[in-house]
């Protein structure tokens, strides 16, 4: 039997195949633990993996991720797989996919951008997937300097 480092969860979400070292950033952008919540959160980092050599892994009890949250994760962990668990069984599997444009998820890091001035609009960024993922504001055309800060 395989060595079990993290307990299975009864209900909730498993985020697997997170780039090694990125799990805490995923935790941060998901805003967990939620205030008042005492559900179990397991974080495993640098787990040996056949597919990725090393990976991070996250198990969040009692929380089902929404599509918007999945989109956020794709920006920092583009290879993640997301499994929703119900009664210890897989209810749904999702792969994250990197959208071309994201709406309303990120904040522009340019303080002088019109999107930071209380106007009635949703932010909009184009997602550029080169060596690393970059977000470019479609209003001021600047690149976001820190994606995690921008979407947390």
């Amino acid at each position: 039997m395989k060595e079990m480092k993290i307990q299975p969860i009864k209900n909730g979400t498993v985020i697997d195949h997170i780039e090694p070292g990125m799990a805490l950033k995923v935790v941060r952008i998901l805003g967990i633990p939620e205030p008042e919540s005492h559900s179990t959160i397991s974080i495993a980092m640098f787990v040996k993996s056949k597919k990725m050599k090393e990976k991070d892994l996250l198990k969040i009890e009692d929380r089902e991720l929404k599509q918007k949250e999945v989109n956020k994760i794709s920006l920092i962990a583009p290879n993640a797989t997301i499994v929703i668990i119900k009664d210890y069984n897989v209810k749904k599997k999702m792969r994250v996919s990197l959208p071309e444009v994201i709406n309303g998820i990120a904040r522009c890091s340019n303080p002088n951008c019109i999107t930071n001035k209380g106007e009635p609009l949703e932010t909009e960024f184009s997602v550029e997937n080169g060596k690393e993922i970059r977000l470019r504001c479609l209003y001021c055309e600047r690149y976001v300097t820190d994606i995690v800060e921008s979407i947390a």
Partner: protein
Amino acid sequence: MHVVSIRDFSKKDIERILNVAEKMLPIARGEKTSDLLKNRIMATLFFEPSTRTRLSFESAMLRLGGRALGFADPGGTSAKKGETLADTIRMAAAYSDVIVLRHPQEGAAKLAARFSDKPIINAGDGAGQHPTQTLLDLFTIRKETGKLNKRNVALVGDLKYGRTVHSLAYALAMFDAKLTFIAPPTLQMPEEMIATVKKMGAKPELANRVEDVIGTADVIYITRIQKERFPDPSEYKKVAEIYKITTDLLEDAKKGMKIMHPLPRVKEITQEVDSTKYAAYFKQAFYGVPTRMALLKLVTEGGN
């Protein structure tokens, strides 16, 4: 159709605008009259002052028989009372046929375009875009050097913060220009911009001195270096001295070379240069009128 960013225009779009501008020249000079935009109203919303840009837009509209209304700075407007730009724009769209917007925040014109059912022309948004300046620069190059394709253009001065040079470098790359960026190391063209023009096929060179290009450039486009960019006044003085066009320097210039400047100039070009055949910067300021006439015509017609 809106005019928000030069990046929204194809090479063909630009050529079309410049061709219309060409036809506008006699009207812009007052040699011919026109009532092409008779009974049309242009709103100029200037949330920060820019006399040259505003006057050239107003001149363009009046020359075409239209009318202009608006404000030249936000003091006394409802923006001061905390109105959102989105609301101001919706109001102006109800009172006019075309809106010219100058705003201190980047992305303001894009926002305006979202909320307006009338065409928006971006007359500068913060450190962002200023597409009508770029178009008039291109018109000047075409007009004063005879063509726009494959020109050898040196951009000189503050290339880091100067917004006009970013849009211009982008547009010139579309027209296969040979670009040289001449600036002190701290004010050199941002890496991103260099990468962008390279992707478009340009092979920009970086240089430190105008002397390096004086014999080869078709156009030297010089911009103002602001004192505030230098914490040390002596450093500024040194730099200001290096990036200066003088008649001595022009002795080695290529025949037909033109000097351009978005104005206002301070000391980047000595006054003796004004009367030489190389000086094109006052003509460039005038070309703002036919270029903006062309844009006003094209956007109010609804075509691009």
